């Protein structure tokens, strides 16, 4: 049997979104999951969380890396706004943004500090008519820039409980 593999140049945002969600484990590691209690995002972004990390926003585009970056930055800005914290008082906005695109977006190296931006190569392939996602290795330059961890904002709970209260409310 011959495998007919070719690059996909046109893919709908919902199909790409499904591929990204199906591959969260490969992108972020074991235990990665979608964050449910986050305001609605458009089809080109998903909010994810890892078992030991804060939420990470994935912004993806099958062709245009710059668009993926700009969309991600725009959504990061929205998710960090006061509106997002109105009803979820311990809500933490995404601590990082990961851009998924065929190439590194222009200006990526300029980002550092409290909002780390990283990039992973993805390419959509069609294998015998079935869509698949090829995920590239972690680029070394991106990996080197990643260690800057954002400072986690203390929640209201953490800031006002004294040690005695902390002990009392450490378990049910």
């Amino acid at each position: 049997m011959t495998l007919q593999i070719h690059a996909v140049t046109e893919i709908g945002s919902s199909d790409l979104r499904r591929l990204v969600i199906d591959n969260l484990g490969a992108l972020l590691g074991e235990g990665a999951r979608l964050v449910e209690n986050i305001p609605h995002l458009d089809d080109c972004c998903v909010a994810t969380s890892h078992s030991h990390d804060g939420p990470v926003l994935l912004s993806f585009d099958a062709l245009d890396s710059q668009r993926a970056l700009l969309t991600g930055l725009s959504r990061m800005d929205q998710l960090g706004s006061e509106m997002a914290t109105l009803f979820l008082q311990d809500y933490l906005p995404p601590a990082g943004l990961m851009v998924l695109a065929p190439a590194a977006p222009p200006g990526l190296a300029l980002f550092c500090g409290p909002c780390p931006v990283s990039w992973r190569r993805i390419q959509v392939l069609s294998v015998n008519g079935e869509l698949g996602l090829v995920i590239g290795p972690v680029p070394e330059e991106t990996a080197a820039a990643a260690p800057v961890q954002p400072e986690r904002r203390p929640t209201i709970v953490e800031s006002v409980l004294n040690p005695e209260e902390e002990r009392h409310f450490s378990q049910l």
Partner: protein
Amino acid sequence: MHNPAWRPAQLHTERLASIQHHFIDERPAVRNTGKPGVIHTLPVHLAVAAGHPADALQPQYLMDALARQLNIQTFDVAKHTAWHVEAVSPGRGASHVEQHFVLVFATANLEGVRMAYTGIKQLSATTSRQFGVLYSGARDTDFIRRCQERLASGAEQFLGIHLHELGHLSAPGPDFSADLARLAGEVHRLWEAHSIPDQQEVAHT
């Protein structure tokens, strides 16, 4: 005795009344009767944790449904009263909360209990207040009891506050209307018992 022929219409009316909370599409408006009215404000501290189950009662739904229920459960028709349910943020300055009774809506888990306690602590820092606590999202009754006991004992021990237990309210289902009506009645009773007269009336023209 009622004419049996009226029974279907009566059942239909009762059915509409029982599901009316589903048809909430806007904040309850204050009745414009042309006469001065009274607005009762019920402050709600939302201790909704990040892990609040998707199938539990959601905070905005509760606030809309409770406002609706308080407004149709005509406790005081003569005064042309209207109820306004308002979320308060204890961490961002609680001085604007004037009412002595505050409803606390908490996720039934450890984080929800901690958030509820923190809000109660902050809201009672400068003014003596009473709190009614309603939970949602518990997996069983034993878990509800543990949440209630942990929060109540902490509030009593550290703040000297006795909490009013309002139980647990699940997501809308067959018994939701009755539970909501019971909750509204209890909230009204507590609100009335713990509000001083000049706080109860806000003239509305």
